[in-house]
Every structure is written in C-alpha cells, then in structure tokens.
C-alpha cells in the first residue's frame, strides 16, 4: 500500500528539518518504497488481546532513594553551548 499522498515537506517541517523541493521529492520516492515494504505488517494476523511490546524492561519499575547528589558544574555543561551568557543558553527570539 503506497502512502504517496503524504507530503514529505510537511513531515519535515514537523521534524524541524528544512528540505528543498528537490530533497523533498527524493525523500518522497524513498518513502514510497520503504513504506510499501513496511506495510507487509498489515498482513500479519494479530490474535485478539495481543498487547503491544515496547521493550524488555516492561515489568520493572526502577526506584531509588530521593537523595540530593552532586551533579555537573554549570560551567562544564555550558562549554558545549553554541551560545550562552555564562549562566543560561542563549537562543534567537522565540516570537
């Protein structure tokens, strides 16, 4: 089943990745063949009551003592910031 009506450009804007028209057309055609393959899943018969499986740690609930422990120095973390004022990350205007 092809999903070619999907707009790659729209998906890209949701994912915050800019695409040119040319790139978008290429992604679109690759998507078509990948999705056609993936949609083999439509043919799998799912017995009633089959719970989705999200990963092998599904039954564990990890808890720990709620204790204050030292974390990283702000200075260390901000060394990797593209832009900061020494205390906070700095970004272009939001609005």
């Amino acid at each position: 089943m092809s999903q070619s009506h999907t707009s790659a450009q729209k998906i890209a804007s949701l994912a915050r990745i800019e695409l040119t028209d040319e790139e978008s057309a290429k992604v679109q055609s690759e998507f078509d063949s990948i999705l056609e393959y993936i949609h083999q899943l439509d043919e799998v018969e799912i017995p009633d009551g089959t719970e989705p499986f999200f990963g092998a740690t599904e039954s564990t609930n990890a808890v720990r003592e709620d204790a204050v422990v030292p974390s990283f120095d702000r200075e260390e973390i901000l060394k990797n910031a593209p832009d900061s004022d020494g205390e906070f990350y700095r970004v272009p205007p939001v609005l």
Partner: protein
Amino acid sequence: MSVLDNSIEQLAQQVSSGDVSAAQCVDASIAQIRAQNDSLNVMISDCEDAARERAASIDAKIAAGENAGPLAGVPIAIKDGICTAGHVTTAGSKMLENFAPPYDATIVQRLNDAGAICIGKANLDEFAMGSSTENSFFGVTKNPWSTECVAGGSSGGSAAAVASGIAPASIGSDTGGSIRQPASFCGITGIKPTYGRVSRFGLIAFASSLDQIGPMARSAKDCAILMNVLSGHDVKDSTSARNDVPDFAADCEQDIKRLRLGICRQHFEEGLNEEVKASVEEAIKALESLGAETVEIDLPHTKHAVATYYVVAPCEASSNLSRFDGVRYTSREPAEKLIDMYSQTRKVNFGEEVIRRILLGTYSLSSGYDHELYKKASQVRRLIKNDYDAAFEKVDVIVGPTVPTTAFKIGQHAQDPLAMYLADIYTASANLAGVPGISLPCGFSSDGMPIGLQLQSNMFWESTLLKAAHQYQTQTDWHSKRPQS
C-alpha cells in the same frame, strides 16, 4: 609479532607480571593506527596522549606491586557514539564534530577501573544508523580483508580495529545488528548482550528500547573477559538489569554436551548465499561433534522483523534526536528566529540517512498520517517475542547465519536504502525481543571474505552463548585468521 597478537588473558597477565609494559601496548596500538588508518579509516580520533598517561600510571602501579586489574594495559577502541570525558565524541555526525562530553560513559569508567586503555574512538554510521559505516560524516571504513568492501555497520570501525590489529578488543553498540553484522563481515567475534545487561549511560541514544552496548574481540573467551567487566546494574541507567552477573570467562570452560541447538527453517530460506549456508551448516556439524543436539524450531514472525524494526527504531530515533536542535550541543546555524535556527541547524548537520529515519519516525508517530503503524508494529513485536519464548522452551540456543551474505562492495546499496536494511534480517529480531546474540567466524567465501555464525539464547543466558562459541573455537581456527596488511 606484536604484543597485541596475544589473547587478552595472556596480555593482561604479561602486563601485570611486568613482562610487557602498558607503554609497549600503547606503542604497538598507536603504530598500527599510523600504519592502517590512512587506508582503512577505522578511527575518527586517537587518544594517544591520554593513553600514554594511563599506561605510565598502570606501569607505576605494577612496579609498586599493586593489582592493575583484569584488563591491565589492554588497548581498547571505543565506538565514537560512546562518551569519553573531555575527548571529542562525534557519533559519526557533523552535528557533534566538536562535542567534548563532560563525563565518561559508565562502561568507559568500568574499563578504566579494570586497567584497560582507551586507544581511540572508532568510526560508525552517523548516530549508529546504518549497516555499512558508509553513513559516517568522517568517511567510509574499509574492510581489512578487502578495501573494496564495507566493514559492516554501524560498529564498522570497532570491528575493523580488531580485525586490523589496532586493538585486541573494541566496544560497539547494537540496535538491530550493529555489533554482530560488522563482526561477521570482518571475521571477528562480537556479542550483543541481553537488553539491560550492560549500562548504556553515556551511549548517545538511537532507539532506546533496542540499543545495547557490547564487546568485540578476536575470540569468545576475550569477549567473555570483557563481559565480566562491562556487565551489571548501574544507578545511572534505570533500564540496566539488577540480575546477578556470572563469571562469563570461567563458564566458557564448561562443555556443551546435550546443549539443545535450535535450527530455524526461516533462517535458511531464499536470499541466503550458498557459501554462507554451507559454512554455517558445517559449523552446526562441528557443534554436534562437541555433543550438542539439534532440534528444528519455528520462528514464524521473524520474517517481519525488519519491517517491525523500521517502524520502531525510526520512531524512537525521531524522539531521541530532537535534542540536537542547535541549543546545547556545539553546532548551530545562525537564523533570525528560533524555529528557523532549529530547521537550519538540523538540515545542515544531519546526514541523509539520519534525516530519512527522523522523517520516517515523525511520519509514523504523527496523528493523521500513519499512527496506527506504531501500534501494529509493537503488536508484531510481541508476536516475535512470543516466538522466542516458545522456542526457548525447546532449545537452549538458536543457531544460524548472522548475515545472508559476506561483506558487500562499498557503494553497492547506496541508491537503495531498503536493500541495505535487509542486511539486518537475521539480527534485528534479537533486539526487538531483548535477547542476546553473538556472531563468530565460521569460514570464508571463495573470494576470501569472512562468514559469520550467529547464536542466540534466552534473556541473560550469555554464558551459554559464550561457552558454545568458545568450545567451537577450541576446535576450529577461523577466529585466528588475520587479513594480509
């Protein structure tokens, strides 16, 4: 002969007894990087200065009569998707070209505590997305057995580092086959442990319900020694398992009489190269001659593993990689507005395959598109897991090929992402279910390329895998073959 040709056990003993210095190990490893890296492109960066300092402190410890640890002086290459404090960690991406993490991954810490020396950071497909290491921003890693072929991926640099003698062991990560497939292509041994067995704190996340770190080395015994160091619960990774950790290396010495080997018909059907098939069948006979018994099993849903994987993994990746937005991790493209800054930064700094997978994941998770797909895939994932559960009622180990072919030519699948994805056909199901798997060399094709045998077991049964692989390696010498450099 280089000191690095010895087994890890021998090497660590020689260093601990003072017969060989840790400094000599580092010299040998750095010399190999110099000799090989220009042609093979195995390492993204080396840690020469830090490694020499570490070696000096290990040698001083030994001179003072102290215990330097079970991996004393052993040089190890670390996949560059794993954080090393203060040393650039790129994940094979332009996005992290200049990123120096403020901390070590837990496994790096554990290796250091055991006396190992990180010799450098190994190449990988960008953010571990790929099966050939062709998707690295830092160029393709070539296969030490033939420079026309890929080393596999995504841990292609880690596999090639061992095969080319740069290091006797390396660390990789495996999300859909990324340790086992390159191990197979490069003629080495590599194990993907059970989900949760090894801490992932400091592994740059790709698909969190599938990712697992594991060792790669020449032999199963070497992998077992590393597993002893890497395994165990970590407070910094809440998904790490609290299960007891056995002595994997000691367990290797047990025999495999009456071990029940499951043979899955689906692993020997169309698409499997004839030479690979013949070598794998030969290996099964060798295991039988050691006392193992074979049983036919059925894993009816494994044929949907790749389709399931390419829903689940991109969904998780699209979420995990949203953190690379130009705010925190070194790279940013200038723009007037915040949203444009995000979109520009991600366009310029992510490679083609990473963008493809982020978009695929965004598509599958977006309301109004195909959001039923994720649910369906997660249900099929349950059926795949149920298949394993049923199989492990009857057998201890599932045996088959790691990959349908030997290493393919560089560029062979460049225009067809789907063909590349099918390289994961025998490996992806283990990640979906969470079970461990090991790949070990079991022969060569007529054109001299290594063939890999895969063994899989139930959750937390790595000892059984390592034991079977080790016993096989006591009877065969495929794992001791070396490429001509």
